[in-house]
């Protein structure tokens, strides 16, 4: 973890190698997809400018493609294209398509009709009309489209890190989940600068006269190709027999990849990938080893096994609701209501609940209700309302289920209404929302509280020795002092990081523990 007094500049220079690689990858991703989008979009734009009847359908489809959420789009493509550069490029390509097609179309149809008519009248054929009149006169508009697409792509390319395609998103999303502002900025500043730089250069190009543009038209494709190649410059990871996919958060945590390298000496070819697609990628054999949560329902769904942590890198941690002190005073019934759940959910129950939501696709509300009924805790929603409790959750399944359970408890046992703000991204977003009085409480894990939020010195962490109860006491105390936030009683289950493999592969390779994995990798 970074020391508090470390400056952004220090952090950046420490990470210079990685930063350079990710920046090159970022530029590469942007321009590979942009080149393809231009090669496809320009002719399509010309086609629909010629055949007006096609313009509606083509622009419509390109428009719809653009509204598909990026994560969903990336998710769809894993079964088809796997993970890594291919799906990333396809997704970026699809997002860049609309502005290029649309502007080519508007540019060409916007050329003065008298000029077009004159061109035909003096005897230009269709191709001459296109190349000598329509394209040159539409060029500023077409360039504006390419410019828009470039800026979109620089932004969306940050999401490439979700599916192991690299780019500056690794810093940004790692930083968000680790609550590390320096890390976020180390990715975000270069990304913003790239966007500004490309935007500026293209805006200059747009203003050039047609005559100069003609010369540039020859060099531009070359430049695009060159920038595209940047993606392949970095020769990062060492190859190995197996490929691991770790989340950005896992990559940066002591009780994550850093610990694995330090304590096990594990050397595995690693790609950075988003939690939402990681399990599926493992199931699809795109990845062999992933960093998951021990209670994740997808573990069961995708037939994965946890490798035993024989050297204790991943200490187990409690999950518990954390609440603003002011909220406890404002809503006097809140504490005892939330504590109704204390100790009620153990690991296997949590895994089962997660499985029902993540794999059987039952709604978190239904699953929560069934669970509460089985525990005899469920009560009818009271109709009298005297205040609104704001409940937050992070953006993964388990947190949605906990949020549903808490909502139903509050509605059944108190006169408060509940406003849920689910899907608050990672730890940083959720915790900031709590500190800034945007929400009253959310479920958190003691390990995350310790390592991602408090970030105490190495010595303090070692003194806690990965002990669940000591850690809980330390975190509870520190949160009270530093933030005015109270940890209520633990829910019961231990959520911990775990390395996982496909069951069949683990059996075949006789890998049961992380040490087995290391030995297998080192065998020639």
């Amino acid at each position, binding site marked *: 973890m970074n020391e508090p007094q470390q400056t952004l500049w220090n952090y950046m220079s420490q990470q210079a190698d990685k930063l350079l690689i990710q920046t090159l990858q970022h530029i590469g991703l942007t321009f590979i997809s942009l080149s393809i989008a231009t090669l496809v979009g320009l002719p399509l734009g010309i086609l629909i400018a010629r055949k007006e009847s096609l313009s509606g359908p083509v622009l419509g489809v390109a428009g719809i493609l653009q509204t598909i959420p990026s994560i969903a789009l990336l998710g769809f493509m894993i079964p088809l294209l796997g993970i890594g550069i291919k799906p990333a490029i396809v997704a970026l390509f699809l997002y860049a398509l609309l502005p290029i097609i649309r502007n080519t179309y508007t540019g060409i149809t916007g050329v003065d009709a008298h000029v077009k008519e004159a061109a035909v009248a003096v*005897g230009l054929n269709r191709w001459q009309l296109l190349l000598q009149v329509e394209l040159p006169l539409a060029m500023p508009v077409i360039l504006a489209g390419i410019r828009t697409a470039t800026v979109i792509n620089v932004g969306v390319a940050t999401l490439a890190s979700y599916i192991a395609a690299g780019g500056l998103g690794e810093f940004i999303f790692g930083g968000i989940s680790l609550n590390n502002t320096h890390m976020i900025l180390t990715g975000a500043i270069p990304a913003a600068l790239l966007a500004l730089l490309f935007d500026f250069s293209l805006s200059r190009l747009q203003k050039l006269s047609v005559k100069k543009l003609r010369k540039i038209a020859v060099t531009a494709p070359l430049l695009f190709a060159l920038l595209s190649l940047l993606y392949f410059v970095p020769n990062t990871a060492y190859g190995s027999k197996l490929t691991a996919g770790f989340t950005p958060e896992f990559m940066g945590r002591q009780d994550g990849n850093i610990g694995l390298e330090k304590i096990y000496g594990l050397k595995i070819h690693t790609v950075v990938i988003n939690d939402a697609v990681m399990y599926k990628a493992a199931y699809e054999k795109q990845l062999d080893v992933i960093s998951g949560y021990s209670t994740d329902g997808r573990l069961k769904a995708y037939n994965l096994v946890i490798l035993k942590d024989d050297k204790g890198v991943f200490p187990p941690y409690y999950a518990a609701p954390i609440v603003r002190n002011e909220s406890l005073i404002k809503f006097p019934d809140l504490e005892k209501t939330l504590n109704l759940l204390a100790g009620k959910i153990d690991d296997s129950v949590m895994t089962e609940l997660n499985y029902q939501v993540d794999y059987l696709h039952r709604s978190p509300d239904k699953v929560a209700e069934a669970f509460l009924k089985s525990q005899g805790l469920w009560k009818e929603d009271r109709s009298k309302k005297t205040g609104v409790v704001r409940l937050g959750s992070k953006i993964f399944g388990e947190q949605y289920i906990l949020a549903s359970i808490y909502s139903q408890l509050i509605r059944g046992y108190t006169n408060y209404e509940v406003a849920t703000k689910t899907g608050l991204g990672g730890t940083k977003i959720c915790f900031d929302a709590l500190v800034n009085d945007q929400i009253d409480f959310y479920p958190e894990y003691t390990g995350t509280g310790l390592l991602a939020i408090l970030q105490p010195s190495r010595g303090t962490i070692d003194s806690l020795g990965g002990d669940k109860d000591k850690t809980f006491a330390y975190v509870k105390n520190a949160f009270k002092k530093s933030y005015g936030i109270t940890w209520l009683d633990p829910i019961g289950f231990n959520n911990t990081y775990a390395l996982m493999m496909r069951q069949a592969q683990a059996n075949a390779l006789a890998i049961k523990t992380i040490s087995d994995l290391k030995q297998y990798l080192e065998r020639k």
Partner: protein
Amino acid sequence: MIKIQEVSKSFGDRKAVDQLSLEIRAEENLILLGASGCGKTTMLKMINRLLTPDTGQIFINNKNIWDQSAVDLRRNMGYVLQNTGLFPHYSVAQNIAIVPHLLKWDKKRIEKRIDELLEKLHLSTRYRSMYPHELSGGQQQRVGLARALAAEPSILLMDEPFGALDNVTRAKIQEEFIALDELKRKTIIMVTHDVQEAFELGDQICLMDKGKVVQTGAPEDLLFRPSSPLVTDFLNEQRLQLEFKVIQLQALWKWLPPGSGPATTAALPSKTTLWRALAYFKYRGAEALQILDRERNELKAVQFEQLMAAFYQYKKNIVA
């Protein structure tokens, strides 16, 4: 040279050109005259194949224009558009060179031709590298004409070429147009809604109304031998001025009083139009004019009133 046979063209329910037939002889200057919306532009575009007739045929030199490639047809036919249609991203020189380029003329020949046209159209060579938006309306129109003439086509189509110009500029360019040697050998079809312009520039005038031909003939035919009240009505407003422009002094010969003595150098030739003779009285303040007919070797001397009296005699005679 150009034969238009029963050509019709509709846009939806609207008949823009209706069973139009017309013949234009070589080196003749034919004006398509008519109110705005009567189908002149539509007719002109069909000759260039910018539009396809619904029915009817068009022949050039006895060859159906639909039997040849549109591109070849157009490259051998100059076209001046109503709003110039100059390429905004091409310099003046490049605009003029478009068709020669398409016809693959060699570079030297093209350059020579550009210089020649700039000179003929009174554009200084410093305009060569300028762009259309840097030129005045009159200059743009000249460049448009130069572009149409560049590849030395034998046929020239012009759609209201002087329509967008102010009166002074228009008069000046019209004068240059009449004087332009190169045009004398061309077959020209020109569209206008301006009666004065039609009478000044046309050998033949085809008056159109609602897509149909009302009358085709020489200017004096339309004036003095109108085929229908429509023609009379169309010309009525400016009739007197048109008549002055059409009538040459020799037509009034027998009503003019004879002159005496030797002809002075100021004597007007009998082919002068009445319009110009009247201008002498008006602008030069002349008391009397001498008119000389070289063929008959006769001299007349007239005062303003005598000239006008002869004009009314002439008209009475025609109507009778």
